[in-house]
């Protein structure tokens, strides 16, 4: 569904992505992991067209996304740090997004109910805590029933209850055959969610394996242990 072909990105002299080649297919739940500053968020933002790659191409349903915007109708994005206009209320933000999308698709308001967002509909965005802002971001990502969900550190900052709600929601959407892309540092959280894993380092893809393969080659039961043993054997 999404193909990333020989992507390079430089910020000034700093090379953030170099020769990244990846393919993501429908129905998969892919985790993107790696140390801080390895280019995960830049890669995600390139797929969204927020960062424009220096070289290379990205295909969405076999069509290049460069200078396109329509394909974003099929993507729900939850940013790492959601930034919203300070003086708008939660309700206004959701209303505004509905107006901007202007889609006829059935809205998925599960998370509004699950997170009890109605209670804070008239609160301004700047008064919200980091975790509550994350809840709003998550709700907006799922709201329009997109085929692809891109979640950047979805559970960071959420309380255990909320992150459990979000995880259940992610599993539910995966079952519907959607493509889900997650970046995370909390490897223990990923165990029951993901089917494929991508490890990035210094702007390069280190490996791209299915979870099954990864566990088998390392003889481990859990993803976090498997990754740790790979990192150890490398040193």
């Amino acid at each position, binding site marked *: 569904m999404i193909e990333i072909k020989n992507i390079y990105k430089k*910020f000034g002299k700093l090379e953030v992505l170099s020769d990244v080649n990846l393919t993501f297919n429908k129905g998969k739940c892919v985790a993107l992991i790696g140390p801080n500053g390895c280019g995960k968020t830049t890669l995600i*933002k390139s797929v*969204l*067209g*927020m*960062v*424009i790659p220096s070289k290379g191409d990205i295909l969405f349903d076999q069509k290049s996304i460069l200078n396109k*915007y*329509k*394909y*974003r*109708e099929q*993507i729900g*994005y939850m*940013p790492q740090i959601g*930034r*919203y*206009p*300070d003086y708008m209320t939660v309700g206004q933000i959701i209303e*505004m*997004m509905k*107006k*901007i*999308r*202007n889609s006829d698709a059935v809205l998925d308001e599960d998370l509004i109910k699950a997170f009890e967002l109605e209670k804070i509909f008239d609160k301004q965005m700047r008064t919200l805590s980091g975790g509550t802002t994350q809840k709003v971001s998550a709700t907006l990502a799922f709201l329009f029933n997109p085929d692809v969900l891109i979640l950047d550190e979805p559970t960071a900052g959420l309380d255990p209850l909320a992150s459990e709600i979000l995880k259940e929601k992610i599993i539910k959407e995966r079952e519907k055959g959607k493509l889900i892309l997650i970046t995370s540092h909390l490897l223990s959280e990923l165990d029951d969610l993901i089917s494929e894993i991508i490890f990035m380092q210094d702007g390069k893809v280190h490996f791209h394996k299915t979870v099954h393969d990864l566990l088998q080659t390392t003889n481990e039961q859990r993803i976090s242990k498997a990754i740790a043993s790979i990192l150890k054997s490398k040193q």
Partner: protein
Amino acid sequence: MNRIIKIIFLDILKNKIVLAYTLILALLSWSSFGLEDNSAKGLLTILNVILFTVPLVSILFATIYLYNSSEFIELLLSQPVKRKKIWLSLFLGLSLSMVAAFFIGAGIPLLVNAPDSVGIMMVIVGCLISIIFVALAFLSSILTRDKAKGIGIAIMTWLYFALLFDGLVLFLLFQFSEYPIEKAMVAVTAFSPIDLARIQILLQLDVSAMMGYTGAIFKDFFGTAIGLMVSFMFLCLWAIIPFYISLKKFKNKDL
């Protein structure tokens, strides 16, 4: 397109600064017509308002607004909206509100007290100046990510066009006073939207008779229909070119 412009326009209207700007313009305009015994003197006072306050408020307000809506821009970019559309909607929303503020504040008293060609000319020129300086604000805010720097560039731009440019022109005039540079001066004015606006309006007033030989040359050029068209075209270019450059940059910006 319309949905986003509407959101932006309503957001700006809620801003109290625009309201205060409208009220101050109205106060200045009504009182300058009320205090002077003939409307020509009132017109000259408003001329100075148009040439100093309007550009300053337009460029500063638009620059700050753009920096403050960086979150809004980021939010829109992850949605199925064209980049060009976002930038153009911001430009139209800001221009529309600055023009509306000018028209309500200064335009109405102008049309009531001086309903002749001078009054109409001043309203048109004031609206154009508002749009031009909004466009310059777009350019200065796309040049740097740093808000303080961006606002600094905006203030310098205003200072240059409002004060420094005239100083430079005077300097040139004195340095080259031995030479026949009157015709060249006409061309030099094209490099500053404020000067273009000033000459446009002064030539409509009777005071142009006092401007001497250079004034006569100006009248010769700007007084004709072609001269008028050319200078209006230049004013339009002053709005289009800065905005176009900023649009090009915005299309390739990483957020």
